């Protein structure tokens, strides 16, 4: 079966089984390895991408249902070669350790901060329930996300 997909604004062709998880198509066919292959059951969030603007676990979406969708991976965020404000905040707060969970963290938090820029610390934690980190203990991640919000408020 052949499928045309919109990935990071580019038309890409996939030839294969229609039930193939999007995660496998991204990593194995398109060599976009930012989305990580970890739990494969929707618990860890490491494979999170945006499908039509919505953070989604790519391990649980069969590619056949995505022909009319816009898929954005961590590689498609921001301007090539530059960091987004959230990515920069993660670096500034030394929040990244092993890096396995961070593409998913960034994909979830970028959408959440765009939708809920006034969110409290607790609400940010709630939004990250589906993104598991086994290194950092989360607090620095939340500190980084809050700093983006505060920077936006200061700019206003």
């Amino acid at each position, binding site marked *: 079966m052949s499928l045309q997909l919109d990935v990071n604004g580019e038309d890409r062709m996939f030839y*294969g089984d229609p039930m193939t998880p999007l995660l496998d198509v991204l990593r194995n066919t398109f060599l976009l390895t930012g989305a990580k292959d970890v739990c494969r*059951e*929707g618990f860890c969030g490491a494979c999170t991408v945006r499908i039509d603007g919505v953070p989604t676990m790519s391990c*649980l979406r069969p590619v056949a249902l995505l022909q009319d969708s816009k898929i954005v991976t961590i590689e498609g965020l921001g301007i090539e070669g530059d960091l987004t404000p959230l990515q920069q905040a993660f670096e500034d707060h030394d929040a990244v350790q092993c890096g396995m969970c961070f593409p998913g963290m960034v994909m979830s938090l970028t959408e959440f901060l765009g939708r809920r820029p006034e969110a409290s610390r607790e609400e940010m934690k709630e*939004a990250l*329930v*589906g993104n*598991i980190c086994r290194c950092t203990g989360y607090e620095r991640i939340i500190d980084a996300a809050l700093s983006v919000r505060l920077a936006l408020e200061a700019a206003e």
Partner: protein
Amino acid sequence: MAIQATSSIYIAKSVSDAVSALTDQGPSAELFAGGTWIMRAPLRQEKERHSYVALSKLPELSVITVSENEISIGSCVTHAELAEALDGLPDMHVLVTAAAKSANPAIRRVATVGGNLSTVKFSAADLVPAMLCLEAEVEFMSEAGIERMPLGDYLHRPAGAARVMTRVILPRSEALSAHARLPLRKAGDYPVAIVSIAVARRADGLIAAARVAVGSVENVARRWQTLESAMSGLALDPHLIAGRAAELLGDFRARDGIEADGWYRLKVLPTLVRRALETITQQ
């Protein structure tokens, strides 16, 4: 080199089209809605089906209507949509909590009502006990037409019928309700036990009628009718009723699972009953 597809997925254009596709393809075909259970079949070492009929693009299955007498919920409404649409309705507190606290945000945006009610092997589904205590009915379309049955009957249905769940119907009532669940982490995993309660009170404040449903303890969620009977006429006292619940634990044959043994699921039930009732007293 041509790459061979080993499975097929048919994207239905309407509910009747989905029924026809299921009928044509026979028992090997399965409905695919949110897919959060089906896509994990390899992890459960289950034999994967090879043909699917997808419902996710059907707008008629994604409608919620609220009236004075009933609420109708399309079978492809997601948990996130359900929690948002019913938020603030006092009689739906149990269902809003179930939909808003299950799994995690990304799963809630994809997993559907119909999928949650239809996945027989998923004992920890949050919506099932919540809807049992709201006396939900489910509606289907098949080649024979429209059919409707109580959710409790649907949970024990024979497998294999070529029918598509179209909606869930919830009667409105003045009962207050609450949903208590115990995941092993604060959030994001399966609850080891779930208690959903709806309580109607008499003018003197005593309990007129109670509906209690328990999920994740046995393989299939069900009403706790002996506790319901025991609650009738009592004061809405969470500690008193939790004590009655503790005396009635013999009603269950709790399942052992990787996340908890059966004895533990039973042990926490009275506490969950108390927590649900405390939530109701605060409403």
